[in-house]
C-alpha cells in the first residue's frame, strides 16, 4: 500500500523588490510558470491551485485572486479549481498547508501553490495604512499603531526584561543582508555593517529602518505531488515531513506574555512531533523576521534556545556554518517581504538548498529545513519541516 506522503517536485519565483513594470497578475503567472516548468508537469496534470495573497483587496483593489491566477495562467478552459488562501502575512504557509492536506486526504495528486503580493503601487504613509490592517484595526491601528510600532513595543519590553542590547537585534539584518548578497532574486544585494544597522533612521523606536522589512513586490510558486504520482512517474522529491499551524490573540495586549509567540510555540511542538526529528537535526531555518526582534523571539519559541537567550545565537550561530543557520535566502529584511509570497518563497529556498542547488549560499549537507511563516504580530504561525533525499 502507498503511504500518503507529500512531495515538492518543482519551485520557481520572481525577483523580489520594487518591480514597477510588473502587475499583480504578471508576478503570479511568472512564478507559477517557472514552478510548473521546473516540475516538468503540464496543465492536464494539475488537480488544483491554492493561491496565497494578503492584501490585494486593499492595496490593488482586486479580490477574486483564485480566478485571476488561474485565468492568466491559461488554465480557465480546463476549469481547474483555484482558490485564494488568506492568513495575513502567513498566507503563503497557510496555502502550502491547505495544499498539503488536500493531497494527504487522497483527493488530489498534483497541486500548485502560489503566493503573490504587489505592494509598491502605493507609497509612504498610505502603504503603512494598508499594512496596518494586519493588526486589530479598531483597537490597535485606529489609535496609531503600525506593525513596526507593535514590534517595537515588544522589542523594548524584551530588551528591558532580559537585559538585551539593541546590538543583538541589529545582528539579524546584518546576517540577512550578507546572505541576500548571494541571492540574485533578493531585493537587496548590499552587505550591511553593524554600525550601519545601528545608525539607521528611527521608524518606531527602539526599531530603526534596518530592523524593518521593506515594502516588496514578488511571487513564488511550488508544485506538490502525492506518493502515487511519484511512484507512477519514478520521481524523487523533497518530502514534507511536518506541517502545523496555530493561532494566538489578534491584539498583542490580549496575550499573557507580549514577547512569547504562542502560535509559534504550539505550531513548532506539533510540527516536530509529526516530523519525528530533533532541533539538532535541522540544517537551517527560514524565519519570518519582518522585524528584527521577531527573529530572536522565534529562535526561542521554536525551541532552539531558552526565552531571553537568543542573544547567544545571533552573533555567530545564525550564520551559514553556525549551529543554526538562519535565512540563507536573505530573509524578510533583505530577500524581501511581499506578504502573501513570503511563505511560498521560503519553500523555494528550501527546495534549492535541499537539492544542493543554492549556489554560493549553499548550506553544506542540508538535509532538514524548518520554515516559519507568521501572520501579523504572531497571530498565526505556520511551520513546515522538509526532508531532502
Amino acid at each position, binding site marked *: 500500500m502507498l503511504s500518503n506522503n507529500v512531495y515538492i517536485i518543482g519551485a520557481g519565483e520572481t525577483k523580489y523588490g520594487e518591480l514597477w513594470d510588473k502587475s499583480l497578475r504578471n508576478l503570479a503567472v511568472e512564478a507559477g510558470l517557472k514552478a510548473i516548468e521546473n516540475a516538468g508537469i503540464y496543465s492536464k496534470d494539475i488537480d488544483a491551485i491554492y493561491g496565497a495573497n494578503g492584501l490585494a483587496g486593499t492595496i490593488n483593489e482586486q479580490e477574486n485572486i483564485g480566478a485571476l491566477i488561474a485565468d492568466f495562467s491559461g488554465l480557465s478552459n480546463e476549469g481547474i479549481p483555484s482558490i485564494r488562501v488568506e492568513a495575513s502575512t502567513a498566507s503563503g504557509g497557510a496555502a502550502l498547508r491547505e495544499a498539503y492536506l488536500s493531497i494527504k486526504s487522497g483527493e488530489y495528486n498534483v497541486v500548485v501553490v502560489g503566493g503573490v503580493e504587489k505592494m509598491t503601487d502605493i507609497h509612504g504613509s498610505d502603504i503603512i*495604512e494598508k499594512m496596518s490592517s494586519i493588526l486589530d484595526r479598531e483597537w490597535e491601528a485606529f489609535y496609531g499603531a503600525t506593525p513596526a510600532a507593535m514590534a*517595537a*513595543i515588544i*522589542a523594548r*519590553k524584551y530588551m528591558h526584561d532580559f537585559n538585551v542590547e539593541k546590538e543583538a537585534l541589529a545582528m539579524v539584518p546584518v546576517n540577512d543582508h550578507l546572505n541576500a548578497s548571494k541571492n540574485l532574486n533578493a531585493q537587496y544585494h548590499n552587505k550591511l555593517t553593524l554600525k550601519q544597522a545601528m545608525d539607521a533612521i528611527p521608524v518606531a523606536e527602539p526599531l530603526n529602518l534596518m530592523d524593518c522589512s521593506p515594502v516588496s513586490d514578488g511571487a513564488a510558486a511550488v508544485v506538490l505531488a502525492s506518493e502515487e504520482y511519484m511512484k507512477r512517474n519514478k520521481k524523487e522529491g523533497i518530502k514534507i515531513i511536518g506541517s502545523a499551524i496555530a493561532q494566538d490573540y489578534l491584539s*498583542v495586549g490580549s496575550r499573557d506574555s507580549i514577547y512569547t509567540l504562542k502560535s509559534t510555540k504550539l505550531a513548532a511542538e506539533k510540527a516536530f512531533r509529526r516530523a519525528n526529528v530533533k532541533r539538532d537535526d535541522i540544517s537551517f531555518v527560514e524565519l519570518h523576521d519582518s522585524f528584527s526582534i521577531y527573529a530572536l523571539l522565534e529562535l526561542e519559541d521554536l525551541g532552539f534556545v531558552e526565552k531571553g537567550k537568543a542573544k547567544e545565537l545571533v552573533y555567530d550561530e545564525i550564520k551559514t556554518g553556525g549551529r543554526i543557520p538562519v535565512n540563507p535566502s536573505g530573509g524578510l529584511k533583505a530577500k524581501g517581504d511581499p506578504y502573501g509570497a513570503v511563505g511560498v518563497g521560503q519553500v523555494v529556498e528550501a527546495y534549492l538548498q535541499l537539492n544542493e542547488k543554492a549556489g554560493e549560499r549553499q548550506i553544506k549537507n542540508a538535509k532538514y529545513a524548518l520554515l516559519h511563516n507568521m501572520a501579523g504580530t504572531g497571530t498565526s504561525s505556520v511551520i513546515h519541516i522538509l526532508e531532502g533525499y
Partner: protein
Amino acid sequence: MTELSRIWRETEYRYNLIGYKCKNCNRTYFPPRDICPYCHRESIGKMEKFKLSGNGEITSYSIVHESSSAFKRQVPYVMALIKLNEGPVITAQIVDCDPDNVEIGKKVHMAFRKIREDGTNGIIEYGYKFKLA
C-alpha cells in the same frame, strides 16, 4: 470615506472606556468581546458592560516616526501598551509629555482626545489617550 455608523457603534467604548466583565469568572476585558476565552459557552449571556477606571501603568512603548496617513500630523508620537488596574492591557497613545519622560512601569491615566483625521474632508474621530499620572 468612513461611514458615521462605523464610528458611532464603538463610541460608547472609546469615549468612556467601557469594557466587559465575565460574570462566570470575573475576568475583565477591553476591547469589548461577546465570549470569554476562558469560559467559552459558559459565558454566553454573562458578559456585562464594565466601566474601567482609566488608571494603569505602562507595560511598554514605542516612539513612532513613520505613521499611517491618518497620523501624519502627529509624528513623533508615543504608542504604548497600558495595563489597566482592572487587568486588561490596552493599546493607546501617551500624550502631553516629553517622550523622554516615558518609562516602562510609570503610572498613567486616561484623557479624552482627538484620535485621527479621516482625510482632509473626513470625520475627526475621538477617543482615549493616556497622560503620565
